[in-house]
């Protein structure tokens, strides 16, 4: 990979129309963990696809179709290289992380039977919990959970107690979307593989912020979303090792995924098309490809370093706010910081911050079991991206002080 000259955050901010638009330029956007802003190159790649290539993929022989298919498949290849997959055949385009995990739970989970066990963790996003609950309701499998300690770090030693020879799958997040905890995925994959069990990694919060290689992680499945890595919404990725995809039944049936169809039966084409029934989100895939190329033009390691530095700065700054409690470990951690302020509900905090032009997310962050484990009803979350600055964190801190004044004396 080329090492490029490190770009300044000011220069990177220039790439994002929404940061420079008169109506929205004043907003300190600290909600990148929910979705990132989109750079001009991604928006242009999407409109360029519709303006220059628009056609369905993998079917017609005309030149527009060839151009469309070329752009779509180049995006797949960009994704495969980015995460170190062995082949483009291991990259399935989905709507996002949620669909990727549902696909695995539904199709790979088809072979599980009552009494089999899937191990998750207490810190999972609902998207890596509810699909397994649906599978449990259908098949009678049992779900078990790796606990977290009070800092929000997985207690991997518990695997010895949770494990039986009925365990069929482990699925865990690489980076917590609430706590910022970076899990030792490699330790989990090593442990599971010694016992012949595959591992799925929810990489929604890791792929946009640090170098992620499927071989380094040793994972069998990996899921992430395009819209959190500067790409469009409605496109995501499932990486799966080829033998797994070959053994799995389709998730949805329809066009593109078949080989031959009779009135009473069909045969399937090969992966990844076997899992891409219907006309795919072609423009979305093209946009995701452009987003990854954009990230690589800056350098994922440079981005990671920038966000690590910002996260440290934000934790130090937020620690000066009296009555503020942060959650999650000190380091290493991803670029999300969740906190509460004594006696002020997170929704009130976030609404006041919005008045001050600071965009954060309040709520349970799609992790209600984790909220219960930590004994809070909701949190405020600030999260960062390539374009985030120290000045935005300073604005957050001063707006929080004003929030406390405004709501002072509440119940």
């Amino acid at each position, binding site marked *: 990979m080329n090492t490029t000259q490190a770009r300044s955050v000011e220069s990177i901010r220039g790439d994002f129309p929404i940061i420079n638009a008169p109506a929205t330029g004043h907003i300190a956007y600290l909600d990148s963990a929910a979705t990132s802003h989109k750079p001009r190159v991604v928006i242009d790649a999407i409109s360029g696809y519709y303006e220059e290539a628009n056609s369905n993929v993998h079917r017609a022989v005309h030149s527009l179709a060839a151009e469309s298919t070329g752009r779509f498949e180049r995006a797949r290849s960009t994704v495969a290289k980015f995460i170190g997959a062995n082949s483009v055949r291991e990259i399935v385009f989905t709507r996002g992380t949620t669909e990727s995990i549902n696909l695995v739970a539904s199709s790979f989970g088809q072979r599980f039977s009552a009494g089999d066990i899937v191990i998750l963790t207490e810190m999972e996003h609902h998207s890596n919990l509810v699909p397994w609950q649906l599978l449990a309701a259908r098949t009678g499998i049992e779900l078990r959970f790796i606990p977290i300690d009070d800092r929000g770090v997985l207690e991997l030693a518990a695997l010895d107690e949770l494990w039986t020879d009925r365990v069929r799958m482990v699925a865990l997040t690489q980076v917590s979307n609430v706590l910022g905890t970076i899990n030792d995925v490699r330790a989990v994959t090593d442990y599971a593989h010694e016992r012949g069990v595959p591992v799925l990694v929810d990489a929604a919060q890791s792929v946009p912020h640090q170098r992620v290689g499927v071989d380094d992680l040793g994972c069998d499945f990996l899921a992430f979303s395009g819209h959190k890595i500067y790409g469009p919404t409605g496109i995501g990725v499932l990486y799966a090792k080829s033998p797994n995809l070959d053994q799995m039944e389709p998730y949805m049936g329809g066009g593109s995924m078949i080989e031959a169809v009779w009135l009473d039966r069909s045969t399937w084409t090969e992966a990844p098309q076997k899992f891409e029934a219907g006309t795919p989100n072609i423009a979305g895939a093209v946009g995701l490809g452009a987003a990854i190329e954009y990230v690589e033009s800056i350098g994922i390691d440079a981005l990671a370093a920038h966000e690590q530095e910002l996260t440290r700065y934000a934790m130090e700054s937020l620690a000066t706010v009296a009555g503020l409690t942060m959650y999650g470990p000190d380091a290493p951690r991803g670029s999300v910081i969740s906190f509460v302020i004594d006696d002020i509900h997170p929704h*009130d905090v976030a*609404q006041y911050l*919005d008045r001050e032009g600071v965009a954060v997310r309040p709520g*349970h962050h799609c992790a209600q079991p984790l909220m219960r484990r930590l004994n*809070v009803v909701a949190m405020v979350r600030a999260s960062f991206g390539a374009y985030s600055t120290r000045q935005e964190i300073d604005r957050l801190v001063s707006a929080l002080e004003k929030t406390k004044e405004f709501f002072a004396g509440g119940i």
Partner: protein
Amino acid sequence: MAFDDLYQEIILDHYKRPRNSVDLSALPSEYAHENPTCGDSLKLVVESDDDGRIESVKFDGTGCAISMASASMMTDLLRGKTRSEAYDIAAQFTGVMRGERQVSELEEYGDLAALGGVAQFPLRIKCATLAWHAFERSAPLD
């Protein structure tokens, strides 16, 4: 619609000095009405006289300023009303919040009128209606 319309002085007053707020921790958790999307939770006790006229509404809750102020205003307003009158007000208020009725309909209800602005904040409507749905569920019509 500006922030200050949402957090009017009168709303903050009810939030900071809630009326009819009591300790109901002895009530089992099944009695709690919750808004899981923001973690707001409240318990409600409605006392009626022999004719079904509401003598008092008391609540115990945790939540944002909007949800707690709405609960406080409701407990004040419903005292002395018949159940059927109370249901009408609840239907009227939740209708305004959903945008199905004119905000001006709240003007006759004193402090409650201040919550009219919430209808412009879709993400906060559930906060304002929590106490009212709790009332509808805790005091079923005979």
